[in-house]
């Protein structure tokens, strides 16, 4: 039963095979910097473990009471100022040096202002999806972030302004950067400078309610040319086919439009994700299922099926209406 | 309580009695508690989005403070009297302390009456209202508790049950009362001096 469930979910939810979002598989300048710094820290800690742990194991083994031992007490040793001073001073020195390296790394990585020439994007956390606004280009999308490659020789870093619509969330795509919390009433910052194209996954990393686990992130890093092509598509108006006029009219007559926005139509809601170019996204529901027609039908009929507790209500529409609305939605390239 | 220290337990026991260490521990915890409300008050100074602001509605509570602070003196006078066996002085001093404390509460009530009904400031109005009422309110609550305890002692004294041997325990109560005064000094400074 569990297995069939698992397989079902895998089939429904796994679009593109992505690499594990490992901290030590960095693909962006800040993530690289953190990874090398982290290796230094781990190295020091490993050395300490070998020394102290080794001594502990040695003492435990070497000084165990043997079976034929006499019952005399061993020499009682109370203290030794030389040893105690040594093992106070050495750790303080280690801590001091490590703190200096840490301070330096913080100063390099933590940026409060966008570097000149960087791409600025506003990321707004909602319960339980992400809104991405590109002020430079004047469009808004959701859940899947496209950013350009940032070659070290010709850098084009991406700088995120992080805001929250409701509770505290956290933006974390491990291979691209460390995480930063997304706090209401406050704008935090995070930057990425990816060096390899590809799809990078992450998710919200601050417990934010029922579907915290379903608030996934996909970041698509593209070459400049591909990125600019994607931008042009996103800036364009929503596809409006004459063959789907009645489907579009049906959509515009339902309550969907009070939450969702499709540029150029009656749907101007801000509460839910922007659907203008819905089909340019690989997943729906902030990553919980593959974005295709059958899943969309399921989703519109009952979001709880993929994302129990999601704030989008089941619209209580008759099945044929759901199908016609989805017919319209899948046209939104 | 005194007998539990010097005789049963050796000179290595600290010079303080159980009650003294106990009361000091309580005061330490209460200090920590009030410190957080003071921090919240200072943190939110000037950040209210609207509504009545401190400078508009607060007046220096001189009379109230005079009452409360002098009540510390009266209780000290009372206890010195008790230590000398002068029961009348003790009862008079305690009565004065209770009266002064109650007057302080009366002034607070008047102030709040004006704030709520004339200026429309409540706990829910804005950040100032929230932090002001909780800080001053908790202080007032501690005054109430102190007054209840003091009144209890006063009643016992009036019925002739209090002797010089009780002076040490009542001294501990006076420590609590002095603490309440010190907190008021902090509240006064933060709310009525710094915050205005």
């Amino acid at each position: 039963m569990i297995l069939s469930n698992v397989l079902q979910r895998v089939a429904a939810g796994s679009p593109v095979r992505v690499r594990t979002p490992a901290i030590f598989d960095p693909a962006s300048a800040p993530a690289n910097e953190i990874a090398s710094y982290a290796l230094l820290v781990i190295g020091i800690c490993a050395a300490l473990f070998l020394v102290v742990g080794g001594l502990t194991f040695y003492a435990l083994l070497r000084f165990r009471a043997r079976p034929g031992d006499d019952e005399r007490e061993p020499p009682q040793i109370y203290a030794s100022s030389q040893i105690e001073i040594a093992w106070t001073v050495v750790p303080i020195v280690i801590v001091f040096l490590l703190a200096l390296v840490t301070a330096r790394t913080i100063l390099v990585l933590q940026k409060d202002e966008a570097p000149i020439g960087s791409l600025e994007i506003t990321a707004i956390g909602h319960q339980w999806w992400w809104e991405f606004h590109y002020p430079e280009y004047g469009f808004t999308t959701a859940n899947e972030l496209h950013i350009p490659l940032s070659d070290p020789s010709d850098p084009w870093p991406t700088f995120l302004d992080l805001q929250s619509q409701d509770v505290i969330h956290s933006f974390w795509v491990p291979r691209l950067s460390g995480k930063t919390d997304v706090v209401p009433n406050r704008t935090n910052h995070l930057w990425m400078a990816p060096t390899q194209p590809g799809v990078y996954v992450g998710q919200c990393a601050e417990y934010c309610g029922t579907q915290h686990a379903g608030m996934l992130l996909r970041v698509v890093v593209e070459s400049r040319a591909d990125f600019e092509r994607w931008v042009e598509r996103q800036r364009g108006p929503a596809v409006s086919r004459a063959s789907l006029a009645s489907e579009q009219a049906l959509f515009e007559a339902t309550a969907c439009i009070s939450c969702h926005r499709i540029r150029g139509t009656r749907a101007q809601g801000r509460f839910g994700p922007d659907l203008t170019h819905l089909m340019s996204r690989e997943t729906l529901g902030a990553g919980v299922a593959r974005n295709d027609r059958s899943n969309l039908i399921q989703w519109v009929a009952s979001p709880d099926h993929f994302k129990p507790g999601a704030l989008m209500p089941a619209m209580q529409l008759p099945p044929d209406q759901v199908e016609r609305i989805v017919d319209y939605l899948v046209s939104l390239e | 309580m005194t007998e539990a220290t010097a005789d049963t337990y050796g000179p290595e026991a600290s010079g303080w009695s159980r009650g003294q260490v106990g009361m000091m521990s309580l005061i330490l915890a209460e200090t920590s508690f009030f410190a957080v409300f003071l921090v919240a008050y200072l943190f939110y100074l000037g950040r209210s989005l609207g509504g009545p602001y401190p400078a508009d509605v607060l007046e220096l509570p001189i009379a109230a403070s005079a009452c409360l602070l002098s009540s510390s003196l009266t209780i000290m006078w009372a206890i010195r009297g008790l230590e000398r066996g002068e029961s009348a002085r003790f009862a008079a001093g305690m009565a004065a302390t209770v009266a002064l404390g109650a007057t302080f509460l009366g002034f607070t009530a008047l102030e709040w009456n004006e704030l709520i009904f004339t200026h429309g400031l409540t706990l829910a109005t804005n950040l100032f209202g929230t932090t002001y009422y909780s800080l001053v309110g908790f202080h007032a609550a501690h005054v109430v508790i102190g007054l209840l305890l003091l009144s209890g002692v006063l009643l016992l004294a009036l019925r002739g049950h209090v002797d010089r041997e009780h002076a040490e325990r009542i001294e501990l109560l006076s420590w609590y009362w002095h603490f309440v005064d010190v907190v008021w000094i902090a509240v006064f400074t933060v709310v009525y001096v710094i915050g205005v």
Partner: protein
Amino acid sequence: MSAIDRPTIDRPAIDRPAIDRPDSIPSEPPNERSWTGVLHEWVTTVDHKRLGILYIGAGLIFFLIGGLEAAAMRWQLAFPGNDALSPEEFNRLFTMHGTTMVFLVGMPIITGFGNYLIPLMIGARDMAFPRLNAWGFWMFLFGGLLLYFSYFGSTGLYGAGSAPDVGWFAYTPLSGKAFSRGNATDYWILGILISGFGSMSGAINMLTTSFTMRCKGMTLARMPLLVWMMVVVSLLILIAMPPLTAAQVMLLFDRFLGAHFFDTQAGGDAVLWQHFFWFFGHPEVYILMIPGFAYASEIIPVFSRKVIFGYSAMVAATVMIGLLSFGVWAHHMLAVGMNRGLNIWFGAITMLVGVPTGIKLFNWIATLYGGKIRFRVPMLFCAAFLVQFLLAGLTGIMLAAVPFDWQLTDSYFVVAHFHYVLIGGLLFTIFAAIYYWFPKMTGFMLDEKLGRWHFWLFLAGFHLTFTTMHVQGMLGMPRRIYTYPADRGWDLWNLISSLGVIFQAAGVLCFAAAVVLALRRREPAGDDPWDAWTLEWATSSPPPAYNFAETPVVRSRRPLWDEKHPEDPDWKYE
């Protein structure tokens, strides 16, 4: 107190004669009272020993419940996309599990041991305020029951109630009125608020007792390390718990009276709660851990047959840890967006706290060194503790390395770290303490063989679950998620972590069996089964109600060593 700088003293090994203790009064035979009489006695007791046992017993029962909650979570997480539990159920489980383990298991058990042992170790008859002591226990219990009532009572019985689901640290605005409707969160607030009064009254008692009720000859410099450490813990409780109370009251005001402490709509700060909470929360983890250090500091010397190395340094280090613990709180908030200066400060101070902690570790190792270590069950648990706590401290340094923390925080790496501290550190020393002092408390020995099974099974389970968890964290798995996608590469590690539960459960079963068996078998332990040196072993097992027929007089830190070795007493060398 004598100078810290003391010359190394070499003493020849000396004989260990048997001690004949004619003054030892046998424990009172069980009375022929009805069970209602016994119940009445226990419910109305103000005796520190009984209250200590009540605290520990209640803590262990909550431990079983918290363990079941954890097992349920690991069952859900064993496979990706699992739907054994709904997200709502899972979120309640991790909230209740964390809250239970910290407030209803850790706090009462340390209070229980402190209560039981301090008067005995200082030669006193009871705690300073026996009735306050009893009040504290019942407040703790009531608070715990109130919290658990939420499973049934909150929002009615129909939906099987709703326990709080905001996490054990209940960050705002999620825990505010707007995002946590109903009363689930209120049960969390009130349950902890009320049981917190128990902890605070315990602290007042322990502090007062230690300062004012020591027997003749016991200067502060001759107190057992356990007593010193509980003094520091009590001070931490008195300073660190009221901020939690204050913050919870503020949250209650927000939720019920329309206040705006954490209301971002009114200009309130979402992060202020975190500052208040962690100002409490960080000292809290030391409040939990330092008693574990205390047990290790009593047990390791006895089983190594050596005096603790560096007594003064141990005291000084504990005090330093206590002081520093107030300066590091925002290392739980390094991703929240504080400025660079604050990030640098909190990272540096957190690393600094590793220094006194390391010193304690070195002192224990130096105590082992040159000893004759008997690996009875308490020592097995302490040995594992030493290695595990070292690892926990080192992963703590990794988390204090701020940029590294930006990756690690809120991931399973943190979960691994703090379970290493609280299970690998605290729980292992608690198990050691139970096996060590159970004979004193009950008069019966716990079965050595079952104890070994308990140890090895639990050790295996603990490592299967939590050592692998470091990997999940480094592979990018965040915490507090009820499920995860199958394509992240986390599947195998989660499965292994979940399998560890089986071994831990088996170990705990052996422990329960050992306790039951001991109480049935009633194999007498005698006054001093371990050949130890502190005063609690100078009276019967269990001690009479008045503890000591005659108040002891001491001349050194190890009064029983002096008694057993009159030709070479400690006070000649201290």
